[in-house]
């Protein structure tokens, strides 16, 4: 898929995803070793975006499984279309096999395993799913195969590139982590964040983007309930552009702080620490 970590960062940059050393190397290793990649980090640092960018950069199909509480096998892996099975039994009196291909409803995981073209399987917000789902994933992630009792074991013809994301609201099991490569996405350095903002909002002036990135970096050093994410920095850039502001002075920051800080106490703290007019 990729030649080297440098190749990864070049091709991700071509689809507007700016990576750093750690991200590029882990993405490259995941492809080279054929292992799933577990991306963990606070909300809004581009975990899901990473999977989308990998899919776009390699021209692969993106298959997404959004995890939530109560997600089960029938919605993650496969389900038998029993209405059709019932009709078949009623329509024909012969004992047809009702556990054939035509009665199988494909769900994202099975789809990824059976896909013949290149595919990126994104298992999003793994931590929201119940612990049992992890067990379901173990076979899939280590051997890229699933077992359907009526059909037997289905092995991937072409291994999909798997990305799991997690916000770490709960610790994932050791067994799952052991099978994955791990990358922890942090808030970016101001330099990288400036580049990201510029790539997302190309019409913004470079100096303003720099000011923005530095201000956000300062905000993140305060003890906040929720530090501003990259997505929020980009929103902030859009806001400034929409308001036609050309300089990020105290009054502008105070007026638009709501775009990046979403708790009243965080707001108050930032106003106090940065000496903003309230």
């Amino acid at each position, binding site marked *: 898929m990729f030649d080297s*970590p440098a190749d990864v960062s070049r091709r991700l940059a071509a689809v507007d995803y700016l990576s750093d050393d750690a991200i590029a190397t882990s993405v*490259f290793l995941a492809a080279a070793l054929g292992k799933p990649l577990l991306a963990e980090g606070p909300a809004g640092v581009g975990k899901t975006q990473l999977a989308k960018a990998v899919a776009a950069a390699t021209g692969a199909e993106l298959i997404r499984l959004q995890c939530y509480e109560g997600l089960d096998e029938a919605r993650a892996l496969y389900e038998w279309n029993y209405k059709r099975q019932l009709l078949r039994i009623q329509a024909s009196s012969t004992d047809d096999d009702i556990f054939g291909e035509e009665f199988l409803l494909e769900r994202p995981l099975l789809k990824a395993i059976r896909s013949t073209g290149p595919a990126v399987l994104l298992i999003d917000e793994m931590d929201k799913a119940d612990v049992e789902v992890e067990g379901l994933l173990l076979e899939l992630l280590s051997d890229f195969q699933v077992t359907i009792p009526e059909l037997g074991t289905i092995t991937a013809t072409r291994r999909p590139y798997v990305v799991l994301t997690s916000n770490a609201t709960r*610790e994932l099991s050791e067994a799952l982590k052991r099978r994955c490569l*791990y990358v922890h996405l942090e808030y970016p350095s101001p330099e990288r964040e400036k580049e990201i903002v510029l790539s997302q909002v190309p019409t913004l002036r470079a100096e303003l983007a720099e000011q923005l990135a530095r201000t956000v970096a300062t905000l993140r050093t305060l003890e906040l309930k929720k530090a501003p994410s990259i997505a929020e920095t980009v929103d902030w850039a859009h806001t400034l552009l929409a308001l036609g502001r050309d300089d990020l002075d105290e009054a502008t920051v105070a007026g638009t702080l709501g775009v990046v800080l979403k708790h009243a106490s965080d707001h108050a703290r930032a106003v106090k620490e940065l000496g903003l007019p309230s």
Partner: protein
Amino acid sequence: MSLVDRHVGFVHALREAGLPVSLAEGLDAVHALRVIDLSERESLRAAYAATLVKRPAYRPGFDVLFDLWFPPSTTGLHNTINREKSLQDAPVNELREQLAELLTQSTDAEMREFAREMVQRFGQQPAGPGRQNWFSYSVMRALSPETLMARILQAVLAGRERGGLAEKTARQRVAANTKRFEEAVAADVRRRIAEDSGIDRIARSSVRPPLDQLDFLRVTKADLARLRREVHPLARRLAARLTIKHRHGKRGRLDFRRTMRASLQSGGVPLTTHFKPPRPHKPELVILCDTSDSVSSFAHFTLLLTYALREQFTKVRAFGFVDTVDEITKFFVPGADVVEAMTRLANEADMVRFGRTNYGHSFERFTERYGDAIGPRTSLLILGDARSNYQPPALDTLKRLAGGARHAHWLNPEPVAQWDTGDSLATSYGSVVPMRECRNVAQLTAFIEDLA
């Protein structure tokens, strides 16, 4: 040392430092080494990190060990080029000038290079007869980066007014870079010590335990700030786990009405029984905490955490004491600023009479003034080291308090081995209220999970 030996040694050192590295993960790392360019040090680091380090808390320790086992340079092997020569005998003024530049804007490589030269020049100190040792403080003293702040600010702000937002962001940037410089110097000092006396010796002493294993009684101010930052993520994690636990817990009482309705389908035979959803058990919490200096960081953190977890309890009331007791609930109103709450608490609450911890008197005052806070639905939580300066313990009062509450727990931040030494009354108090050792965040989370 061959690459394999170095790999095995590194993995071993990681395990020794408390990182759980399994055999399979070690093998993954070896596979990774075969596909990456080994001459790229940062990609080697990223490859090891991706395969071996799967919790962010372990990352700092990993980085320290990586720098020791795969040092960026080796003294003597490195060809000194002219520019570096000049660094070795340039006047200190010029060096500070250069440092100021680096603190304004620099790449990691430049910073490391400079740090290496500076350690070479200033870091060596005689330690005992005939021995040399390496220190970071002598480098810091020679260059004193913190005194450069004013000069850098002047240059960066370039005539704009002081005190505004621009100064704040510049200040933050310089502070962050100063920290980077300090870390680079410390890393280079460790590398040189490792060269002189072996990796193993320095490795053991230089890896700090991960945040959730930090001893409450030994946290530094910086650690406490880092811990405070962890409060909300931790509370979110705990709350999520508690909600799941409650939902998966026992079923509630039989829902008679629904069962009867359902039984009509089967001719009055109740084939399926329906149950009411379980009523979440939300205890009322009364926290009584020792706020004296010796255990204050423990009390601070625990209070913050319980308040971040407010939703899990019907009601939380907190009382602080040193030798007399005062209610401190009001400092933790929702949305209040954490840091401010702590300072206000220390200044405004009336908890000190003579300034020496007195558990007995505090318990008596508590019964007198706030005895009605404890009822049959409350869980009483006492935080403290049970060191009462040889004052009367007032065991009977405590017994009455604990008897009135539904549950009572005592969290002691001291290791069990130190209980009952000196003026500690751990066993006496422990016989009235079950006492648990609670030295770090991991133990505290385990306790809260049991409690709610």
